[in-house]
């Protein structure tokens, strides 16, 4: 393997937010004026992350896990409370101008286009700000217009674009200066299936061309189609970091059988007979969910064991994928959230 250089290097990254602690109502607001009290909320709690040139990383986790905050720290929008960041050798929050030339950022929820201006004007202003030479600009624009099909959007005011059009224009705006690394914060959120496909195809091409990509997402499609590495974060900490395909294989070892029973499920009894499986109740009292390692016993054996104990009306077997990992991660009450990821 060719030696690769670390493009992003973060160590011990911490970000705390101070939130005013106010009692509800006007009285509480007034009291806050006199006795100012704050709650400290640790959104990012000691993150170490290294991303090499050319990598494609999915940064996933439930809402409030600290994904967006990490991206904002890596891009220099926020100043870390503790820890260090370097992106292409630059400390982003200290040298914003130098950093800006190396990175491109797309926020799915917020546009970076000048809201009141035609798309074309945004591109030209960015060209001026980034001092992109005329020839490079024309080449970039030609390529982006072609692959993102934004040629017809150029004269349109940014605020009149549909979400899908806006996303394509935003992608172009972030890539105009040909950054070495692109951060995408939920780039496909709210997009319809066909636009999602186009965006993903575009991102795949970007990765193939050697651009480093780090994206946060809730969408398994984004992860599986674009990224080779997955970093799972929860409560401000990295919980898993590894190749997407290894994770998929690990999870593929597990299956879930969902039973519909004739009577309420005797969970304890079933657990006694299937000690190495996870037995839990489903949505209704007559539902039963058994999750197990397929390398230990085949699905048929599990089904037979359950059928020997209770009367089964219906059953369904699900193989697990990255989607299940995400789903279980998002269900924070589940203690087994990460057992599948090893």
């Amino acid at each position, binding site marked *: 393997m060719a030696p690769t250089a670390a493009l992003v290097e973060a160590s011990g990254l911490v970000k705390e937010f101070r939130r005013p602690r106010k009692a509800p109502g006007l009285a509480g607001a007034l009291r806050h004026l006199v006795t100012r009290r704050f709650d400290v909320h640790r959104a990012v709690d000691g993150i170490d992350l290294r991303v090499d040139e050319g990598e494609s990383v999915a940064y996933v986790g439930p809402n409030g896990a600290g994904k967006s905050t990490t991206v904002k720290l890596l891009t220099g929008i926020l100043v870390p409370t503790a820890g260090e960041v370097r992106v292409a050798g630059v400390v982003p929050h200290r040298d914003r101008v130098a950093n800006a030339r190396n990175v491109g950022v797309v926020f799915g929820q917020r546009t970076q286009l000048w809201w*009141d201006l035609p798309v074309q004007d945004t591109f030209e202003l960015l060209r*001026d700000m980034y001092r992109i030479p005329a020839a490079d600009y024309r080449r970039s624009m030609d390529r982006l217009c072609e692959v993102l099909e934004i040629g017809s959007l150029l004269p349109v*005011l940014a605020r009149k674009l549909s979400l899908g059009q806006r996303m394509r224009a935003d992608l172009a705006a972030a890539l105009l200066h040909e950054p070495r690394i692109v951060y995408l914060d939920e780039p496909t959120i709210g997009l319809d299936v066909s636009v999602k496909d186009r965006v993903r195809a575009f991102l795949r091409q970007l990765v193939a061309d050697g651009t480093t990509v780090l994206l946060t997402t809730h969408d398994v499609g984004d992860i599986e189609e674009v990224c080779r590495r997955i970093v799972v974060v929860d409560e401000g900490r990295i919980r898993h970091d590894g190749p997407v395909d290894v994770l998929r294989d690990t999870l593929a070892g597990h299956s879930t059988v969902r039973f519909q029973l004739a009577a309420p499920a005797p969970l304890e009894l079933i657990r006694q007979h299937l000690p190495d499986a996870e037995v839990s109740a489903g949505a209704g009292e007559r539902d039963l969910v058994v999750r197990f390692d397929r390398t230990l016993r085949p699905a048929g054996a599990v089904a037979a064991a359950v059928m020997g104990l209770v009367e089964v009306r219906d059953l369904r077997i699900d193989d697990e994928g990255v989607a299940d990992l995400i789903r279980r991660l998002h269900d924070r009450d589940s203690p087994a959230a990460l057992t599948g990821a090893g």
Partner: protein
Amino acid sequence: MHTLRVYRRCLGAHLRATLEYQADFWILVVAAVLTQGAGLLLIATIFARVPRIHGWGVWEVVLIFGMMVLAQGASELLAEGTWGLAGLINRGELDRMLLRPYPCLLQVCSSRVGMNAFGNLTVGGGLLGTALAHLDVAWTPGRVALAAVLLPSALLIKVSLTVVANSTSFWLRGAINTFAAGLDQLGELTKYPLSIYSVGLQAVLATALPFAFIGFFPVSAFLDHGRLAWVGLLTPLVAAWCVLLAVAVFRRGLRRYDSAGN
């Protein structure tokens, strides 16, 4: 130079976009004329009864008034975006500005163009011209040079004070900055000769909130009028101080910026 060119292009792009709404444009020009007309009416009414106020004649007061209107126009043209700063902070929209290789303050300033700008620049310029025509000023080279220094300094003070006032949004955290609007209203007091106010208020308007250096003091120096005429010669220094203050306050505030959640 590159920085200024990009600034001009940002404003230019917004100007083009703004001018597409012709009706808005004309309504706001008329509004500026009416608003400033009301102030002028007050001056005319007063001077119909008394020939001078604290030694100031009608055209001298109109000159101060014209400077203030012109400065307001300049601030609406060059720094209107700062009035949106509270909203930008609240919605976390400074994020995108921090990601570009260009000073954040200038991006904020040029994120809008105030349409009243044209009305006020026209009215202010007109008042300045008319007042000067009536004042019988001896245009020696020295006086021309003085005007050439005082005018841009005064405009710069107004623009800087607008930036300072709105930079308080970093601390206030409301969706709109009523504090800045209040300060701006206070500045309106200096459309009239400063000496009509109490000593305390004069001191505030001359030092802590140097609005008096937009109209009153530079006009005093230019016309060599009154005991305090020499103070007006400090206008360029005050301008430099205000610019530095604006940059420092904005930078300080930006450090408090916490973005916004998704």
